[in-house]
């Protein structure tokens, strides 16, 4: 028995030692900074001296029309999320037919996952430009009179960013759904067909519920990407403009701190973004818990 408890002690001790590097690294570069961000969000801060403003720092920001303009951009980006989920779901169904060469197609669709937003942004910018492929395509289809210059208008530029974002999510989301479809129980479909259910009914009542977990996952990934992964794309493609047309919250954080020197405001916006993501993450966890019970 003595041996056993000394083994337990060894296990606990070594376990703590093994966990320490991760604990130190994550605390130093993520944990402490997020606490600092919380503190400095209540201050006016230029990176060196901080003046305590208290809750009025937040009140002031909430009164600023620019802040709401930026959040509106985030909201508009959210409108792209259903497309960024449903379109790849359709693609996954196509791939799942497993026609000749489907594995090659799968690799091609997933390929953009490997390239940086900087590169994607640069190409996308030319695509939407006045002399770009989009206008040439429109002309080729006899729609030359539409001749767009999306990047020069506020809403147009945001639309172009959203399209690029949806394009870049195709690979990730189709792979998620393809993984999900591999887990489908085919015998359920056959049983339903015996009972006289049509294709649509089978999809709605049997396929979709089984894919639920994967839809949730892809939803989370897509929203997180829309809110926190587009900095480089916006930096390269539009620089946040024209005006505040494509300034989303994450880009506004960078601008506030590193272009205008308002580190306090930047920290506050970071805290707001953190809470948005935390609510999303916790909501997801609770939803999964509920299912498990």
């Amino acid at each position, binding site marked *: 028995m003595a041996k056993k408890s000394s083994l337990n002690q060894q296990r606990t001790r070594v376990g703590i030692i*093994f966990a320490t590097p991760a604990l130190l690294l994550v605390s130093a570069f993520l944990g402490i900074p997020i606490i600092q961000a919380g503190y400095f969000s209540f201050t006016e801060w230029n990176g060196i001296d901080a003046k305590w403003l208290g809750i009025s720092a937040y009140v002031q920001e909430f009164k600023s029309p620019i802040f709401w303009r930026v959040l509106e951009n985030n909201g508009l980006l959210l409108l792209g999320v259903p497309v960024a989920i449903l379109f790849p779901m359709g693609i996954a169904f196509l791939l799942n037919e497993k026609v000749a060469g489907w594995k090659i197609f799968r690799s091609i669709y997933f390929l953009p996952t490997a390239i940086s937003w900087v590169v994607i942004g640069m190409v996308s910018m030319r695509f939407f430009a006045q002399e770009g492929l989009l206008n040439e395509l429109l002309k080729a289809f006899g729609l030359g009179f539409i001749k767009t210059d999306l990047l020069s208008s506020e809403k147009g530029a945001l639309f172009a960013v959203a399209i690029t974002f949806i394009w870049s999510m195709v690979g990730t989301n189709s792979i998620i759904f393809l993984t999900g479809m591999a887990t489908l129980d085919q015998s359920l479909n056959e049983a339903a067909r015996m009972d006289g259910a049509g294709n649509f009914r089978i999809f709605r009542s049997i396929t979709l519920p089984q894919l639920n977990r994967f839809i949730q996952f892809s939803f989370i990934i897509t929203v997180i990407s829309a809110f926190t992964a587009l900095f480089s794309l916006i930096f390269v493609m539009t620089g946040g403009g024209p005006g505040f047309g494509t300034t989303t919250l994450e880009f506004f954080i960078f601008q506030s701190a590193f272009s205008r020197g308002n580190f306090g405001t930047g920290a506050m916006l970071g805290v707001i973004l953190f809470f948005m993501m935390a609510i999303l993450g916790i909501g997801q966890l609770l939803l999964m818990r509920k299912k498990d019970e």
Partner: protein
Amino acid sequence: MRSRKYSPKTVAVFTSMCVLAVVMLYPFAFMINTSFKSKAQYFGAPGHSTASWGKLFDTLPVWKQLLNSTLVCAGAISIILVVATMAGFAIAKMRSKATPIFFLGIVGAMLIPLQSIIIPAYINASKLNLLDGYSGAIFLYAALGSPFATFLMTSYFRGIPDDLVEAAIVDGLSYPKVFLKIALPLAVPAVITVIVLQFIQVWDDLLVGLLFIQDPAYRTITVGLGALSAGRVTDIPVLMAGSLISAIPAVVVYLIFQRQLVNGLTAGIGK
């Protein structure tokens, strides 16, 4: 006669997949085609040339920046591997009362967006003189990558039976020995997944590199390119040549380790 084998549905599916393939491959075609044009050729003059490639190497220290990217990736990934395999093993196989809290902390850290911590992290790093070389960027990349890597390693180590570990301990091996001699060799697939995932993540990143590498001599290729595009360079063929060269390493890694990348991506779905 041959066409009889294919139903209209199969043909329709195949055709749509081809169209989609064109849409997904278009950027690559555009980059390759444009990079082999001079500025005049891009604006309508006929033919192709390698003029823009020459110009790229004059404008951007390409080799140096590729090396910088490689070193930053290698540094960050090494730290992540050491930290995440150890922590993952601790969570999976050396459970104590503190384990659930630690695991919760790791999962919680995954939820922290980079932009939420980047300002204090930047100020801290500048006070600690971490912005001069690669070190600030390497540490931040490592910290950002470690939580998910730990999560992945934990789920992998959980798949190793407890009995196996206990038997080795009863035979007189210490926990560090079990980790090095038994658990790590079994976890090679998960380790490769972590490497591939982090390589692409770090190689492609702009924001951290932009802020945490102050000396242009240490810039990574992605940052160099981002700075170039944001600057006055409007020579599109040169930018496309640069884009292409920056994308190649990640694309090659992707083509070789596609399966590991997919595994890493879908690991978060859980069972």
